């Protein structure tokens, strides 16, 4: 089944009070067994999209199909998806055992089967021995595990996770990221994960869906989005980047000339297929640029002055100002760092294939 579309959102819109459009004509296809992340700044509609799939909200327009079944108008309890909530939403009047067993009890599963499946879940999330604890006696990470167990025990077709790691501290967060990924591989369930943390999205997902203003900006594998962002928003949201603005000059077959008027520079880039005279920007990641006193043949470069050098452990960041007054960020590893100092006249150079043309 892998590779087939499993969850399909067709032209889904959600408006509140007939005015505020939170999700705008969104179409999305999710394959089975994938770890898919909805990534975007707060207010981009990613949580609402998740709530639409869970059934807490009904779309104003469009249809939602899960595993061949149209669930658009179905209430949450009739859908074969489960949610791990941002605030965990554990039942405060039930102990860990009853919280995890809740879904099976609602399905009238036999008592001895419930018992064996709950203990299996507790083992899986490494919470054995916590059966009779109340949620108020658990730490954030423990509540997180119980919330995951409570959802996963129902064998959902899709597990929805709404910023589940948001409330944890950094160290625990990293640990839970690994555990979630491990769990997803082991269970083979489709995970739909919502986050605003780009690092989390890149390290955990098979597919990342970048959202803005209720629409999808770009969908793809993490490397693809990082290396080939479609526009400045995606480039800027996934990690840091330098956006260098210019205009297309002459166009040849495989190459084009990018003219940077203010920098008084022009250089050849792979032909992005834009017409001459059209605005075009380049996105160059800081780690792809080097500071040098003599650029190699074939490298693209800008003349700049070193403004500041910041040591941050694994790398050194240089902020260099171009002729036109633009700050360029450069990250160099400790072994390959240049010997420049503040105020030096240098070149910021990169290989043409590391610059991604994006429409301004």
């Amino acid at each position, binding site marked *: 089944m892998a590779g087939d579309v499993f969850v399909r959102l067709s032209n889904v819109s959600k408006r509140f009070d007939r005015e505020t459009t939170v999700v705008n004509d969104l179409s999305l296809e999710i394959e089975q067994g994938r770890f898919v992340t909805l990534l975007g700044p707060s207010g981009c509609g990613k949580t609402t999209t998740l709530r639409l799939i869970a*059934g807490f909200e009904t779309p104003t327009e469009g249809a939602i199909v899960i595993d061949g079944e149209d669930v658009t108008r179905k*209430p949450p309890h009739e859908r074969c998806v489960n949610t791990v909530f941002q605030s965990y939403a554990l039942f405060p009047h039930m102990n860990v055992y009853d919280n995890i067993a*809740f879904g099976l009890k609602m399905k009238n599963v036999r008592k001895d089967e419930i018992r064996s499946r709950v203990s299996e879940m507790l083992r899986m999330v490494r919470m054995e021995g916590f059966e009779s604890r109340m949620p108020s006696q658990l730490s954030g990470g423990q509540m997180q595990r119980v919330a995951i167990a409570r959802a996963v025990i*129902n064998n959902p077709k899709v597990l929805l996770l709404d910023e589940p790691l948001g409330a944890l501290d950094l160290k625990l967060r990293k640990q839970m990221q690994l555990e979630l990924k491990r769990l997803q591989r082991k269970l083979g369930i489709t995970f739909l994960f919502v986050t605003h943390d780009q690092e989390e999205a890149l390290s955990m997902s098979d597919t990342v869906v970048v959202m803005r203003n209720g629409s999808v900006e770009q969908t793809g594998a993490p490397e693809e989005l990082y290396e080939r962002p479609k526009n400045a928003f995606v480039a800027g949201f996934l990690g840091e980047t330098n956006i260098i603005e210019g205009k297309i000059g002459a166009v040849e077959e495989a190459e084009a000339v990018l003219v940077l008027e203010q920098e008084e520079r022009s250089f050849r880039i792979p032909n992005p297929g834009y017409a001459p005279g059209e605005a075009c920007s380049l996105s160059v990641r800081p780690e792809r640029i080097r500071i040098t006193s003599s650029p190699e043949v074939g490298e693209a470069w800008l003349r700049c002055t070193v403004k500041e050098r910041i040591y941050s452990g694994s790398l050194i960041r240089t902020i260099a100002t171009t002729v036109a007054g633009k700050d360029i960020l450069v990250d160099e590893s400790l072994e390959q760092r240049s010997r420049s100092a503040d105020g030096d006249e240098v070149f910021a150079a990169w290989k043409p294939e590391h610059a991604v043309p994006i429409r301004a």
Partner: protein
Amino acid sequence: MRERTYGARLPGMLVTVLPAALWMLAFFVVPLLLIVAVSFCTRGEVGDIVYTFTPHNYAKLLHPLYGSIFVKSLIISFFTTLLCLLFGYPFAFIVATAGKRLRPLLLTLVMLPFWTNSLVRTYAMIILLRTEGILNTLLRWAGLIDEPLRLMYNNTAVMIGMVYMMFPFMVLPLYASIEKLDMRLLEAADDLGATPLRKFLHVALPLTKAGILSGCLLVFVPSLALFFVTDLMGGSKVVLMSNLIKNQFLTARDWPFGSAVSVVLILVMIAAIALYLRHGGKVDGKEAM
């Protein structure tokens, strides 16, 4: 060191607590003890109190006539509480989940009669319900009934009056409790496959138990003592313990027997409160009133 601090604070404590303590002593503890004392006395020939010890007044209460009044009082209070809960819970839920603009309006609708004199409200109910009253006139005009409904001077009338009078006491604690209920928990239950009914039984109900218990206590206990509703809406046909007490003091002038009935009623109320504290105290350590 600690003792000196305590000593220094003592006059301050006396100044703040003493007036209230004296007040309670003079107007609550002493009268209560007097009632207990009088309940063991005898009625004189002209309705005065003869101070000779006798358990006679309590023995008299064992008479089937008084026993039936006692049971009937409990039943009426019980059903008043039940009806208030059945109407009050959905209403409180609607208020608690209503929009920010609608919520104060709905709460005011509950509170408005609460601020009106209760006697006036009872007379208003009579105007509404009596044979030639507004309700019967409307129903006959609409052709729904031929004969006027007998809504006054029976148990139904007493129940209607009681529920009407006690409704805010049920709604307010319920509202306070439901308003604190995290609606995401209901979503979580829904997500885990709970039908609306099971969502209510397994999540909403246990988590609003404190409000339910407070509301029931606040309705049950005072409705045992609401004599004027029974008097006005039940005519002379319905007699409850509260009416019995009133009649003994004001009409029969048998203060010792009236006091004995009062003491028994107070014991029932204490029992109800004790029951509440026992169960209400367990509710997650939260919001027990």
